[in-house]
């Protein structure tokens, strides 16, 4: 049981911020008094987070291969030792076909095409697996699947309400992933960002919860640190020792920050309702100005107070909360991660970010390492990923400590860390049945699991249109920024001009979102927002990868049906089955795009004889050739009146298709 050591009261304990070589220099902030008018608007580049835009992509691998293979070998030692102790046999090594399909799904987010599968399976080079790992980790598809993973974790959604859109934030996240920016720097960027939703990508993270900052805090601690504080938001945690005071101490670090500006919102609303404007103006103005009330700024005082119904005697109800960081048992007193200066309210966020992302922080590295382990193996070393309060409760505590160590040694490079995991023997073993008890799983192999919604959708797209689906990148942020209007320019006199000048753009922006009822992403409306050209549209579906569609996808989209998170709470993606899912696969538009004129069928049609055609379809759908009885069965069915599209339908609906072995 975790024991929480007395809080570190920091007001008096002041130290010089520790300089970290891995950390980018902290920027000096613009100070802004609570009552002051907004600063004069600048031209509107994304100034919140210069580092992100300027930082060059970390193109090549950071760690050399001998380090990667050495680290993988040591992880295997730890895993195998635990297996041996428990008397559990490791699964046999996975064959090339299973490895191929799994790695594509994990690293590229989709199954390989027929050509990609055949090329790998017939490649006789001994190092073809590491070569494929490196290639996929540096492909555009890597960014796409990582975005899906992040989006579920960070609750990324297009619509912040009342016309405000987070498109720039989404683009920013994709840029970070493409540039392979280290996780600590990325999180610091999100926690310290300033600026408007329409002009500052990184600020979108905090603005997501600008109207519910305490819930945002709760999510942040749970997601980034595995500190299970959601109970402590309202009362002392009944089991762990987080107190409500702890929670408020943490939340106070954001108590001098403001994200949603009610005054701006009301002013825009009042002006846009004016009778002097032509009908329909309100909708147009909503699109253009909806983001204006959302702006991260720092004030000169911390305003968070304990709740009026606070019922413990360690603080007074309604009194101002003191910023203080929580600490875990066993955390060394001299831990530099704990040294924080709380004297300057406007620097509180920076101090908090520095504390949280410090390499010596006792949970930050472990939390992200554990989450990526789950992404790779299907189950985390410690479950649930939202609660790392007691690391000794991990299925294999030594393994948890080890992966946290490698995360730090990789300098929070998520791609390199995953490269290590993909090189383990454990990852390259056959999948094992998903255990009844995830908390004691020792990783004899990865857990067998259903594809995520995004993997299923992106794989179906691969069948329909081939690898070209990786080329269409939805980037809507620049449009948003181009139309951003500084607050002080919003006057009755300018509104009319805005409406007249931006009618077309506003309509387009409205269409670029999911729409009110969210029935279906309108292919034509989204088309102008794609870099790499508009994706093909068939059977009413836009064949763009899950990461390149509205976030989250509209409610009755295939993605949502198959369990994509609605992004209301963190980690809400599911792989549960349902009747509508089966109906969609059997009768819906997805089976249409796979059985009519699909890339997979074209490939099969080009193959020589019937056995070759059957093999081509098996390669396309299951990334393996058919076993002899399967080929015979399929051939018999083709003689008996079924055609290749029928075989495609059967393969799509097979359970093997939907599962990651």
């Amino acid at each position, binding site marked *: 049981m975790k024991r929480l050591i007395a809080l570190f009261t920091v007001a008096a304990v002041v130290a010089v911020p520790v300089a970290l070589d891995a950390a980018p220099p902290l920027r000096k902030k613009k100070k802004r008094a609570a009552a002051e008018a907004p600063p004069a608007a600048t031209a509107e580049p994304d100034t919140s987070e210069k580092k992100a835009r300027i930082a060059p992509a970390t193109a090549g691998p950071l760690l050399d291969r001998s380090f990667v293979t050495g680290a993988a070998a040591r992880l295997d030692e730890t895993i195998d030792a635990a297996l041996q102790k428990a008397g559990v046999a490791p699964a046999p090594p996975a064959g090339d076909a299973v490895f191929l399909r799994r790695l594509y799904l994990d690293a590229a987010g989709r199954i390989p095409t027929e050509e990609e599968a055949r090329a790998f399976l017939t490649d006789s080079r001994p190092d073809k697996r590491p070569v494929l790992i490196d290639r996929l980790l540096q492909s555009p598809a890597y960014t796409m699947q990582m975005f899906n993973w992040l989006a579920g974790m960070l609750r990324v959604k297009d619509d912040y309400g009342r016309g405000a859109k987070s498109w720039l934030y989404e683009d920013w996240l994709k840029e970070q992933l493409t540039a392979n920016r280290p996780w600590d720097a990325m999180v610091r960027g999100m926690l310290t960002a300033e600026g408007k939703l329409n002009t500052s990508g990184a600020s979108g993270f905090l603005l997501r919860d600008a109207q519910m900052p305490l*819930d945002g805090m709760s999510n942040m601690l749970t997601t980034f640190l595995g500190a299970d504080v959601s109970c402590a938001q309202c009362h002392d945690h009944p089991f762990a020792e987080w107190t409500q005071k702890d929670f408020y101490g943490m939340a106070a670090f954001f108590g001098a920050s403001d994200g949603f500006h009610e005054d701006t919102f009301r002013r825009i609303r009042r002006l846009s309702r004016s009778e002097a404007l032509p009908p329909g103006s309100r909708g147009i103005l909503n699109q253009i100005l909806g983001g204006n009330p959302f702006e991260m700024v720092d004030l000169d005082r911390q305003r968070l107070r304990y709740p009026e119904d606070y019922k413990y005697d360690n603080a007074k109800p309604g009194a101002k909360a003191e910023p203080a960081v929580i600490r875990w048992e066993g955390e060394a007193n001299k831990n530099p991660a704990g040294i924080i200066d709380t004297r300057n309210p406007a620097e509180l966020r920076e101090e908090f970010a520095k504390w949280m992302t410090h390499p010596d922080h006792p949970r930050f590295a472990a939390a992200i390492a554990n989450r990526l382990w789950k992404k790779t193996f299907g189950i985390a070393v410690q479950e649930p990923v939202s609660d790392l309060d007691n690391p000794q409760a991990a299925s294999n505590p030594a393994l948890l400590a080890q992966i946290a160590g490698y995360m730090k040694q990789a300098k929070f490079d998520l791609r390199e860390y995953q490269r290590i995991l993909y090189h383990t023997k454990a990852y390259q073993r056959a999948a094992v049945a998903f255990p009844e008890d995830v908390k004691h799983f020792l990783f004899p192999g990865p857990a*067998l699991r259903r594809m995520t919604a995004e993997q299923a959708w992106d794989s179906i797209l691969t069948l329909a249109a081939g690898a070209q689906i990786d080329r269409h990148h939805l980037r809507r942020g620049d449009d948003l920024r181009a139309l951003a209007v500084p607050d002080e320019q919003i006057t009755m006199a300018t509104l009319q001009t805005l409406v007249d000048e931006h009618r077309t753009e506003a309509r387009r922006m409205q269409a670029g979102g999911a729409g009110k009822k969210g029935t279906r992403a309108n292919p034509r409306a989204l088309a102008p927002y794609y870099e790499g050209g508009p994706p093909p549209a068939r059977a009413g579906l836009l064949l763009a990868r899950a990461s390149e569609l509205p976030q989250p996808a509209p409610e009755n989209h295939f993605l949502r049906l198959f369990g994509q998170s609605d992004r209301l709470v963190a980690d809400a993606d599911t792989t549960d089955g349902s*009747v*509508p899912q089966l109906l969609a696969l*059997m009768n819906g538009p997805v089976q249409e795009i796979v059985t009519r004129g699909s890339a997979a069928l074209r490939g099969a049609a080009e193959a020589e004889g019937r056995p070759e055609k059957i093999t081509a379809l098996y390669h396309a759908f299951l990334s393996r050739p058919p076993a002899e009885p399967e080929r015979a069965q399929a051939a018999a069915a083709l003689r008996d*009146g079924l055609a290749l599209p029928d075989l495609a339908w059967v393969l799509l609906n097979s*359970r*093997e298709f939907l599962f990651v072995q």
Partner: protein
Amino acid sequence: MKTSGHGPSEITRRLFVERLARTAFGLSVLPFVPGRGLSETAAPARGAGFGAAKAVIVLQLSGGLSQIDSFDPKTGTSKGPGEPLGTKAGYQLTSYLPETAKVADKLCVIRSMTAKVGVHESARYLMRTGYDQRGTVVHPVPGAWAQHYLGASHDTLPSSVCINRNAAHGNGFLPATMSPLPVLDPDEGLKNSRPAANDATRDKRLALLKSMDSAFAAKVQDASVNACNDFYESTLKLMNGKDLEAFNLSGEAADLRDRYGRNRFGQGCLLARRLVEGGVRFIEVESEGWDMHKDIEGGMEERGREFDAAFAALISDLESRGMLQHTLVAVTTEFGRKPTFDGSGRGHHPLVFSCVLAGGGVKRGFVHGSSDAAGGRVAGDPVTVGELHATMGWALGLPLEQAVTSPAGRPFTLGNNARPVAALFA
């Protein structure tokens, strides 16, 4: 699952099979195995109305129904554009609800609903789940709670359906298979239920699929294979069988369809009745457009008329089929509207508003609670949204006191520990 020496109950068996199913096929629940629920093993004698309802239909009037212009008419400065309308049950409605007035003797009007939330999205969430909206957890709708306690309500049809609206994560923290099945257009019915190929081709496809799947199952070597075959079988049964007819309105008589109203809400109400007949337990039907800041008169003449016709038709249709006694119909909204009438519309007002119940064991021709003379505050017998939810759960015979632990380890109950309102039951 830890057991404590007792023999495996139906629930543990179900959970066990469910785990196995998840192992190989990612299915969280065998959706079509109607379970015998906790209430049967743990239901001692309860009070009036407990378990009287086999099904619940919730009519959601989104935007905020003006209580004063519908179920709680006022005079003086609060009076709206409509006139008071007497009913045979002795209470008054407004002149916008003439058809409803004819079934007033079958209704139980609550005029003392009260809440704190006056923002649309949060209020809608509260009314739908019984909980304040939070950023850290999503709460289930009553249909999901019922499926948790009682098991699935039918062997092929879903246990919960929502009409004219999205499911919006209605399962909350419960498994996704407890989420309501959305029907966005009542005329269209269940999506993707029409087979993609002709019968002969389909049979051949399925035969090939079956043999392929059994090869995979043998390879994966998991005991859940047979359990999962049930799942595919059930979907096929639903596609081929007559249960699907529950979603098809074309079989209804034209004059009955007219009586419900040829609009999405009216047809949604009719579909709800069909689904209850088919075996669906919990149905939501949404009507949008009740946010009448301006022009209540026009709004009530349009939306109000649609609602009036559909609601009255639903009540009398259920009654004439002998279904009303075991079907609880609830009219809910987001909040009420202000007593101050500016000659056009009214603002949001959560402090007092009206909801209506009918059937499912509640009193008939009854008014519960009251608002003050102006219609601004509760004058007697306040009812919270949580209590309304507990009341629905009580009518369905759910063990309200048995908390459910969310995956994050936090305990929750239907209605957030509120008690059912006993005075509502006959």
